[in-house]
């Protein structure tokens, strides 16, 4: 027996039931480690379950070999565990630091909060690392295991956070990207009243198919027919309403329209009676790449700015709100424009049409049209979809708005990408009710249930926007911010930069620290809301033989809206002399109306003489590839760059005499193969436009 074995024998320390042996390789002076805190290089305590001390005494050589082997195994295990623990601790470090760095992009939202997050991450990592280093230094098995478990948890958490942040960053990039891809669903709509029945897509061969000028559905539809090898004649219309009228009138065999075409033109009481006799022959989807113009280069914390908010539905602008923000007064004007407002559309050569149809051509067409209508320069655009309302409202935990009547609203099912009906919460006494995303969407879309129809809808849209802002301002949870950003990124497009948005939110939150009511931080904004009022009218279409519904705007309403917005964004107006206050709590203050309900102006109930054939009124120089059958793009993947469309629109040579009696549109350089109907439009614009 060698010296080492002798030392080993002296260190034998039997227990009652198990045989416990301490093996000392280096020296026997070192303290015996407990079974839970083993020091693997200096001494070993090995337990052989079920063996007693007597047995050990009887046979010493066998256990010693086993003990050596066991010790080797333990050392190997320790080394393996330590390696894993170190690797995972390093991974946790990398992931958490990466997360913190990614998160800093949003730090301008609330610096103090992000400082705390950064310090917390630093503290957690330092504690973890020091503990892990201690476990390695002292070679404590259980410490290593604890550090390993903590590292696993932190790595898992860090991985998830990194995944979420990368997604959010991607969403924010999408949100503020000026180029984006959108899915367009279109359908070939047919009318059973037509003399020539159509039962399949191939029946359209040689027939005339109509589309709305410049719309995404037109491009998608034409590509679809090309794919199906259907050789159809194409006829273009100014708007979906005109297109639908053409279908009913028998001008065309089929119309390329959005799948939800009924919801687009259901304002026309003269047309909706035909819905039952129409059906979808075929529907198809495609992705379309669109580009928006870059926003203004402004510091939103010092310079007043304007934003055009539009809610997109099947390519049309269902919601149009012109917002102006003054970062000093924190006054925000919100001016709604009825989607049926009958105004000159800039990209139609200023021919009047419903304002929502301008959006079908491009967002910039809508911007130009609103700018021309109001005289207000628009700095930025924000475009949202049904899904964005649902997701953002849900991200802020729902909205609280006043709804005093029961109705079944029409919302959107994101999962199935289809309309759905649901009961909307209400409180007859006019109190606030809580609505989730789907309910809020139905609420802001509803007009039939309310006496003032579309204006109730505009009011509700403004109320929901205000409450979303209130909820955003009130939140203290960074996760909520990130959820909002993610929801917004998925469904909202803006040409503001991410920094501009974040800086402004941060700025507003700084202001809120001085606000007298900490429970209502959104109160820091003073919302001044209004709508450009007008009156119901109709326009007689000699071609179709019936009246089309229109909504004519009051000149006074447009002027008042312009004045209110210009005052809000002005920094140079001469201030009126300060007078003082006179207020009494025995009455309720009623803010002066931004825009009056009615104006003493001559109204027209029928613009029949103004109406001209809305189809094929224009030819476009250099863009016949888009509008005429023979030049239709052979674009098999149906990718359509709407930027190109815009460029072509800009190329349109329009000689439009705003004040004269002729709006003659000429197009140069039309392709000889085209079916261009390059006609002059004899329109008396002075009679046609009640709005100057």
């Amino acid at each position, binding site marked *: 027996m060698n010296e080492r074995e002798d030392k080993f024998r002296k260190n034998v320390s039997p227990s009652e039931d198990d045989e416990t042996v301490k093996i000392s390789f280096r020296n026997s002076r070192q303290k015996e480690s407990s079974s839970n805190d083993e020091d693997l290089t200096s001494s070993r305590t090995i337990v052989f379950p079920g063996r007693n001390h007597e047995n050990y005494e009887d046979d010493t050589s066998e256990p010693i070999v086993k003990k050596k082997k066991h010790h080797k195994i333990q050392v190997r295990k320790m080394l393996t565990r330590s*390696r894993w623990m170190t690797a995972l601790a390093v991974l946790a470090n990398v992931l958490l630091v990466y997360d913190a760095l990614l998160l800093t992009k949003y730090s301008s939202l609330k610096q103090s909060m992000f400082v705390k997050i950064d310090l917390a991450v630093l503290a957690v990592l330092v504690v973890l690392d020091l503990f892990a280093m201690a476990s390695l230094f002292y070679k404590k098995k259980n410490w290593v295991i604890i550090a390993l478990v903590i590292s696993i948890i932190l790595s898992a958490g860090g991985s998830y956070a990194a995944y979420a942040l990368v997604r959010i960053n991607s969403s924010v990039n999408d949100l503020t990207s000026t180029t984006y891809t959108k899915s367009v669903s279109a359908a070939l709509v047919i009318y059973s009243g037509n003399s020539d029945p159509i039962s399949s897509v191939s029946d359209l061969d040689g027939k005339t198919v109509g589309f709305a000028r410049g719309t995404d559905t037109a491009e998608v539809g034409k590509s679809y027919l090309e794919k199906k090898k259907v050789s159809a004649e194409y006829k273009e219309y100014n708007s979906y309403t005109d297109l639908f009228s053409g279908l009913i009138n028998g001008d065309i065999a089929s119309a390329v329209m959005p799948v939800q075409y009924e919801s687009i033109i259901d304002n026309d009481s003269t047309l909706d009676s035909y819905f039952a006799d129409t059906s979808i022959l075929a529907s198809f989807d495609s992705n379309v790449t669109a580009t928006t113009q870059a926003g203004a280069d402004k510091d939103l914390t010092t310079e007043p700015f304007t934003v055009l908010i539009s809610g997109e539905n099947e390519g049309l602008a269902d919601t149009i709100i012109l917002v102006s923000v003054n970062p000093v*007064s924190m006054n925000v004007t919100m001016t709604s424009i009825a989607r049926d407002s009958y105004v000159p559309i800039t990209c139609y050569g200023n021919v009047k049409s419903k304002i929502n149809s301008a959006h079908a051509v491009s967002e910039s067409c809508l911007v130009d049209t609103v700018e021309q209508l109001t005289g207000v320069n628009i700095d930025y655009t924000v475009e949202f979809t049904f899904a964005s309302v649902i997701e953002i409202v849900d991200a802020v935990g729902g909205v609280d708005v006043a709804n005093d009547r029961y109705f079944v609203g029409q919302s959107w099912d994101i999962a199935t990408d289809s309309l759905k009906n649901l009961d909307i919460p209400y409180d007859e006494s006019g109190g606030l009710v809580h609505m989730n995303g789907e309910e809020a969407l139905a609420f802001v879309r509803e007009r039939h249930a309310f006496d003032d129809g579309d204006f109730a809808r505009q009011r509700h849209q403004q109320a929901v926007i205000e409450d979303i802002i209130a909820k955003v301002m009130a939140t203290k949870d960074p996760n909520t911010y990130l959820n909002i950003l993610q929801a917004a990124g998925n469904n909202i497009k803006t040409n503001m930069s991410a*920094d501009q948005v974040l*800086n402004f939110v941060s700025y507003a939150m700084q*202001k809120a620290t*001085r606000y007298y009511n900490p429970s209502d931080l959104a109160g820091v904004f003073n919302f001044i809301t209004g709508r450009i009022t007008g009156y119901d009218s109709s326009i007689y279409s000699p071609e179709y033989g019936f009246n089309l519904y229109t909504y004519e705007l009051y000149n006074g309403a447009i002027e008042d809206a312009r004045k209110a917005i210009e005052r809000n964004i002005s920094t140079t107006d001469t201030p009126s002399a300060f007078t003082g206050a006179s207020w009494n709590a025995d009455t309720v*203050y009623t803010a002066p109306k931004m825009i009056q309900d009615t104006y003493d102006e001559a109204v027209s109930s029928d613009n029949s003489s103004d109406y001209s054939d809305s189809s094929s009124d224009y030819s476009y120089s250099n863009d016949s590839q888009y509008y005429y059958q023979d030049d239709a793009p052979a674009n098999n993947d149906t990718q359509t760059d709407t930027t190109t469309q815009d460029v072509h629109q800009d190329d349109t040579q329009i000689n439009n005499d705003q004040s004269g009696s002729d709006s003659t549109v000429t197009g140069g350089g039309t392709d000889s193969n085209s079916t261009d109907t390059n006609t002059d439009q004899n329109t008396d614009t002075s009679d046609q436009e009640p709005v100057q």
Partner: protein
Amino acid sequence: MEKAGLRRQRKEKFRRQMRSLLIILLVFTIISAIALLWNLYRIRNSQTGSGNTLQTSGVSSEYSNKYYSIGNNPTDIDKTYFKELNKAVEADDKALISEDIVKCFVSEYYTWTNKDGTYDIGGMQYIYTDRQSDFEKYTRDEVFADMDLYLDKYGRDRLMQVKEVTTENAVNAGQVTVKNALATASTADPNATEVPDSTASADEATYDAYTVQASWTYDEDTDMDLSQAQKNAVFTVIDHDGRMEIAAIQ
């Protein structure tokens, strides 16, 4: 001996490996700490736009009592009047409190040198709480409507500042009926005046009240034209469940 040597080598190898792991961890700890400290610096210096918000100055606890707290960035006379209010609150003298909150209100509300913007309305804490938002809206729309233009044109330091406020003795006005928090613009009766308690509707409430006649002067070192500026008013102060609050300025 050979085995012992081998064992020592193994032990040495084990120690080396453990030391390597330790060094790796140490290095990553240092890198992480440096990265996070640098990130902290980035956060502190992150671009938040050049728009400024007037920093709220801290005030000592003497400018707060069981009912009221002094407003943001108080001026010297704000502080003086608030100290007087403290004494009145301590004495629980309703008439005196009424006079002092009127002084405090006037000195805060009609002073713009310490305001950040139209939203930053002084003296809100003295307004009848049920109708604070109503008063705020009125102020922003009509009284402070051009404050942003004044700020742009003259700068904050050149705006109006109350120099002195004097009040007559508060007069017991009996009971007055005012709208409560339930009242909304649609239910408001613009012709409503004080009505007996028995006829008060659900959106009204009746309180004991004092009226206080106040007059004040402005610091002349200002660029604002104060020729038409209000310099006196009669305030109605109600006893709102023990807290005296301004319910009317006329």
